[in-house]
């Protein structure tokens, strides 16, 4: 019987994995459970391990209760804005970076190498460290409080271009030669060959970029002052206020519900499109 000593190590492996899973999942589960409790209860004892009776009320408030002067902001509106930011960012990034990468890889022109470096340099400097001038420029262009101003400045980085460049370079050279023999022009080649070949990659990049865009925090906080444009992650900032100002009992229940709501769409997408997502993440960095 060789199974016995073996079993101990397997049990150990499972124990480690289960502990790891608890470490990762447990906190979020507690927040979800806590969203079913009364504010005062939470204010007194913190996160809850059971199931309270305020679930419907808290979630209803989180989604439907309007606040602010204009009365236009509620959970649904923030959800919509987060989707616009996530999808707009992902699509914009994919379109412009595919175009740029296509130009760099498939065209012979003297500017190709400098163009690549001009684009690539943008990997150097995260938005956070050039935040003030970026804000000022966006404001000068009159883009504050617009979806354009929310999305476009975030697109100004090379991650997507770099990735598509790597991918295009792995496409066999024979294809482009065959296309040229067939008399296909660059546009036809792009649409008929490159786009279909890149489908999985596009999907993978879309997921990663959607999550990235959805999770943006500092930029939306600065650039949106109209309540109707707030995103969910920016809404978290509002929640944190109630911790600081000490004027009112924080609406803890609603805060928990909003926190869950803010993580739900990206988490679901990552879970359901796991294989694409993992492939995109791992391949894009090679």
């Amino acid at each position, binding site marked *: 019987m060789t199974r016995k000593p073996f079993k101990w190590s397997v049990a150990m492996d499972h124990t480690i994995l289960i502990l790891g899973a608890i470490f990762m999942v447990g906190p979020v589960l507690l927040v979800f459970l806590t969203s079913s409790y009364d504010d005062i209860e939470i204010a007194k004892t913190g996160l809850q391990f059971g199931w309270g009776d305020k679930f419907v009320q808290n979630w209803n408030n989180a989604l439907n209760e309007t606040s*602010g002067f204009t009365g236009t902001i509620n959970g649904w509106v923030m959800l919509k804005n987060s989707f616009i930011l996530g999808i707009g960012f992902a699509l914009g990034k994919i379109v412009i970076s595919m175009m740029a990468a296509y130009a760099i890889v498939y065209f012979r022109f003297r500017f190709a190498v400098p163009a690549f470096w001009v684009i690539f340099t943008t990997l150097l400097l995260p938005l956070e460290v050039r935040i003030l001038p970026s804000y000022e420029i966006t*404001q*000068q262009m009159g883009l504050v409080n617009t979806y354009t101003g929310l999305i476009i400045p975030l697109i100004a980085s090379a991650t997507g271009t770099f990735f598509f460049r790597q991918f295009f370079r792995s496409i066999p050279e024979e294809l482009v030669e065959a296309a040229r023999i067939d008399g296909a022009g660059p546009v036809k080649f792009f649409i008929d060959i490159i786009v279909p070949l890149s489908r999985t990659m596009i999907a993978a990049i879309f997921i990663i970029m959607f999550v990235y865009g959805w999770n943006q925090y500092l930029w939306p906080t*600065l650039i949106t*002052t109209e309540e109707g444009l707030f995103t969910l992650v920016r809404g978290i900032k509002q929640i944190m*206020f109630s911790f*600081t100002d*000490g*004027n009112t009992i924080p609406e803890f229940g609603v805060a928990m519900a909003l926190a869950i709501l803010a993580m739900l769409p990206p988490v679901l997408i990552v879970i359901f499109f796991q294989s694409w997502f993992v492939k995109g993440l791992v391949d894009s960095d090679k």
Partner: protein
Amino acid sequence: MTARTFALGAALSFVAGAAFAETEITWWHAMSGQLGETVNQIAADFNASQDEYSIVPVFKGTYEETLTAGIAAFRAGEQPNIMQVFDAGAATVIAAQGATVPVQDLLSDNGYDFDINDYIAGVRYFYADADGKMIGMPFNSSTPILYYNQDALDAAGVTAPVTWEEFQTVTAPALKDAGYTPLSQSHMPWIFTENFFSRHNLQFATNNNGYDGADAQILINQPEIRDHFTAFKGWVDTGLAGYYGTGWGDNATPFENGEVAMWLGSSGSFGGLVQKVDFPFSATLLPYWEGVTTQPTQTFIGGAALFAMSGKSAEENAATAAFFSFLTSEDVQYQWHQSTGYVPITNAAYDTAKADGHYDRFPAAEVGIQQLSLEAGEWTRGYRMGFYVQIRDVMNREYGRIMTGETSVEDAFANIETEANALLARFAQTQN
């Protein structure tokens, strides 16, 4: 924008049967939660009170974020008509002459009477220039006062302390024996520093506390305040006081929960406390050190003021003036005072509150005004220092290190003095 205003006007004219061209102005503020709702209410009331102008309040985040957003907007020519600026940011906005229209000029140019003596004593000059001209309209004005849990004092058989000596020898030990943490405070730079200087009538900075010019030097490294922090640190170490970090709420919550017997907070906290606590509470004046002065003076206001940004059309400025006039009217001030606990800024509103019996019902609501109306001294009008947000950050950091024992009181104050003076010198250079 014009299209919307037009559509709105068209809709209104359809309803009301007359054509109005409303002038719309914006107001950026930092009032969240309940305060934000009150702000919205005031704006809505103003819009309903007349049909020439309409105001749109926008919540912009913390005080610091509101100021910075306003600055960036100003540089891009997209500033709001009215911007709320907090006490520590006042120097930045007032130093930038040309960024704002002094409220005093704005009101008198638009035909409203302005007399600075209509305002209660403690709020008159904090947001004024060196000549005493009011630049910013005091809005949410508060001053630090001592709240106490009546049950706790009764259990310990003491009354609220008038002086820190009394606190140290009588009140605190009795409260400790009764099972309470005697004291906490929520904002050391504001309560234990700026207002400490004012309460004891001590000079806080050269150049007339900074009012006479940006090249001022802070005078924080003084024996009186060092002794105060040595004492406070001692109280915390011996259980006569609690320190819960830099966060406002972290220090207020133990009082609200009944663990801490007395709390130094803002007179503007009154409205929130009424809703939150379930024990009888009241408030009294900020204690002082008898060893430092036997004639304690008034404190000055904290909170924030409203500034009218420059570069706006005459109609919009008229709208802003109309709003300020509405805001300072007795009824609005009284309503604001009642629902938030911030002090009314005019004597007339104060009188209205008194006549209405507000202070008979809530004696604690009057403490802030009483303190602001105490005898004035040479150094009680306020202070004006640039980059003061960072100077407060330095104070908070060093005070935090005192409390955890990472540094000594002497080193901490020497550090604050050096770093604050470096910041002041840098700020002076930005003004060239």
